[in-house]
């Protein structure tokens, strides 16, 4: 299990700035084994910083990150259980696939040449061509193949699927899931594509401006929000009335006499609270993770200024 306990990460202030930049502020989550965990967040939210902390690239300013009980920073044993694929592939430009294999083989004793050869063959990746001559998708595939071949307990993919066409995304995702399932490994993936996380992950967390907003199982998260449509007939439903009924309203809009609202809480629970207003129409529509993402960030004013200007 990866235990992220009260982690704060501050970067030294740049010249001209008065205070250090806080990239993460007291973030705590646990990532269990054998799961696919999605990191969601706006641009600059702190997802990549958290990933770098989890694989020992940065030390925590405060708090701790433990992999199977061992502090990860500067600990070879803990780092041996994790493989980090960052959002760039330029560092591998001069490598051929053979070089890539030999490189990681030197660092990970459990590296599987069989897995590497099988997957590169399956994906028809050229063995002796430099990776600078690969397409973006091919580069990604190659690095993911290397990550899977290292046979680490945890694999972290930072925006690994961005820029890939849908067919390629599906191929890579299937490949990863198949390999991970075979050996009970966990994958931590960050992406802006919420639908993808929704589809791929069994757990997720949302982070915004360094603060953790929620974390847990995807189904549990989704069941914690619902979209309600209601009409009171001749009376106009208002946000205040909904809040007075005990709902935590995140977004409210009306179309004629029909009011639509996004509320925090389970559907059955919310419906029961509104029944007291004797609505003539009352239904709950399930929310997608993407909608939750948008509404949660809207509540925190993300993008509000830009929307106002437009």
């Amino acid at each position: 299990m990866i235990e992220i306990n009260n982690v704060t990460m501050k970067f030294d202030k740049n010249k001209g700035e008065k205070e250090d930049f806080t990239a993460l502020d007291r973030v705590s989550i646990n990532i269990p084994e054998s799961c696919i965990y999605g990191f969601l967040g706006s641009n600059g939210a702190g997802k990549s910083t958290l990933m770098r902390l989890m694989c020992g690239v940065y030390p925590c300013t405060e708090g701790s990150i433990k992999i199977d009980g061992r502090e990860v920073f500067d600990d070879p044993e803990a780092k041996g259980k994790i493989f980090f694929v960052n959002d760039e592939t330029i560092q591998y430009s001069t490598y051929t696939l053979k070089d890539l294999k030999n490189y990681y083989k030197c660092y990970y004793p459990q590296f599987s040449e069989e897995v590497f050869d099988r997957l590169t063959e399956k994906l028809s990746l050229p063995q002796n061509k430099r990776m600078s001559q690969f397409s973006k998708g091919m580069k990604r595939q190659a690095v993911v193949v290397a990550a899977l071949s290292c046979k680490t307990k945890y694999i972290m993919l930072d925006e690994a699927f961005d820029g890939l066409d849908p067919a390629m995304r599906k191929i890579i995702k299937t490949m990863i899931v198949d390999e991970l399932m075979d050996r009970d490994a966990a994958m931590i993936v960050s992406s802006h594509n919420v639908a993808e996380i929704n589809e791929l992950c069994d757990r997720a967390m949302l982070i915004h401006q360094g603060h953790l907003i929620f974390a847990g199982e995807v189904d549990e998260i989704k069941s914690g929000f619902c979209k309600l449509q209601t009409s009171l007939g001749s009376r106009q439903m208002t946000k205040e009335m909904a809040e007075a009924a005990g709902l935590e309203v995140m977004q409210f809009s009306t179309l004629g006499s029909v009011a639509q609202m996004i509320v925090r809480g389970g559907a059955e629970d919310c419906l029961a609270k509104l029944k007291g207003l004797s609505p003539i129409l009352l239904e709950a529509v399930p929310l997608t993770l993407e909608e939750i993402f948008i509404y949660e960030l809207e509540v925190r004013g993300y993008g509000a200024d830009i929307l106002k200007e437009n």
Partner: protein
Amino acid sequence: MVQTYLKKIELASRAECRNRKKIRLILLILTIVGALFEIKDYKVMTITENAYNDGIRFQRSPSLEGIFGAFLMFLAACFGLFAVHGVFSDLTSKQNADIQLSLPMNAKERYLSKLMAVFKLHILPILTAGIAVILIGSAKEDAFDMMGYIVRFQLVTLAVALFVDSVSIFCMSCCGAKAEGIYTSIIMGGCISVLPIMFFMEAIIGFSGVDNTYSFYMNPFYVFGGSILTALEEVGTGIGATMPYILANLLMSFATLFAAYFIYRRRDGRHVGKPIVYSLFLELFMFTGLTTLFFVFVYTGGWSIGLTAALIICIVIRIILARAKITPIKFVIWIGKYATALAIFIVLMGAAYYTGGFGYYKVRYHMNNEKAINIEATAISANPSSAYTSSETKNRYFQRDFRTENTTAANDVTVPANCTREEAKQAVEDINDLIDRYHNLQDRDNESFLSIFTDNYSNWYYSHDYDYYNIRITISDLKFNTKYTANITLDDETEYEEFCSELSKILEESYTESYR
């Protein structure tokens, strides 16, 4: 356990090396071609006889091929900068830092594996080429002394390669951007190579008036980086004379690598991208660079141009390094730091001036096991009119050979001993007493001190003023190898006459140089 640890380091270094194919190829070409030219040189090495009393003296001078070979080896040694830059890319590239810092290694293992990678990429080819040159050279030449020369030549190349690597690793560890890593390494390396010898020659020898280093390559400050020149110098002393300095060079390189480890250990992904990670390093870098420039300009005499040029260079580097907005306050701070460096330099020079090279002016020559020595003294009046027209004050020349045993000249003529060992020793001590009486710090004044920043400072102990008399005492062996010199400047004619009178009691006055 230890075996597993070493295997881990070795495997990691292998991974680093594999991905530096271009650097490896360039280094192999340079070292192989360089070694071939050096090997060829030994075939045409000239051996000349220049004997006087100790039998045959060898003089060796690399031929054009040899110099070209040495140049290629020197280039290979300097190419270590790029090898270090490639291997330590985790310090300056965010992408590489992400990969390398997340690998299952701690900072110590990472550093050791990178050191080993640099050794394999850079040092090993130079070492192998050096061993090949030594083995082939030994097969061609039978003289033991010759082997000493060959070994010394290869050790110097190795010392320079280690110097380049250690300084580059140190500078790279303090920088977070590629450009800064490279140019600070080049500038620091250059400054460190010349600064000690400039300090010694200008602040110690220059202000003391005495010199017992008698040969440039024997200078104790001539270490760390600059010693490649010693190998190119035409000398016949084999390995012994320069070995301590080569060893000192190697030790200083290892010490630098050791210091760099503690800096590297403190580095993590947060520092990547910052031009200079540690502000202390920036100030050290600027101070080293400026001090070197100040020494150069004091020596060349273009002090006003030098000060301006140094200020411009200093500000340009600061502007490059300041990736944020430049404000007038920052400019003032930069100029303040420049002024501080200048003030420290002036204080240092002042201290050296008023203490006669930090007390070095008291250094005297004492006879040890020499069979024969020559003492000569040249007294020159700075006033050309008095030197040539006045019968009272004129240029005078004194010299005497002290041979304690029979010696053999080049034409096999035996030159008989002319004194006992005690007599020779006494003559040296009499000369020392004379120097003690006339060579002191009483002539130091502020005006003279300030003149080092306005006049040409090539020879502090030679006054061109009309009323001054310059006396130079030289002690050498009979092979013209200077062991000691003392320069004395007198401004009183009576004193000058007294001095010459004393000299004439120890040495013989003549108007022509003697044949030895």
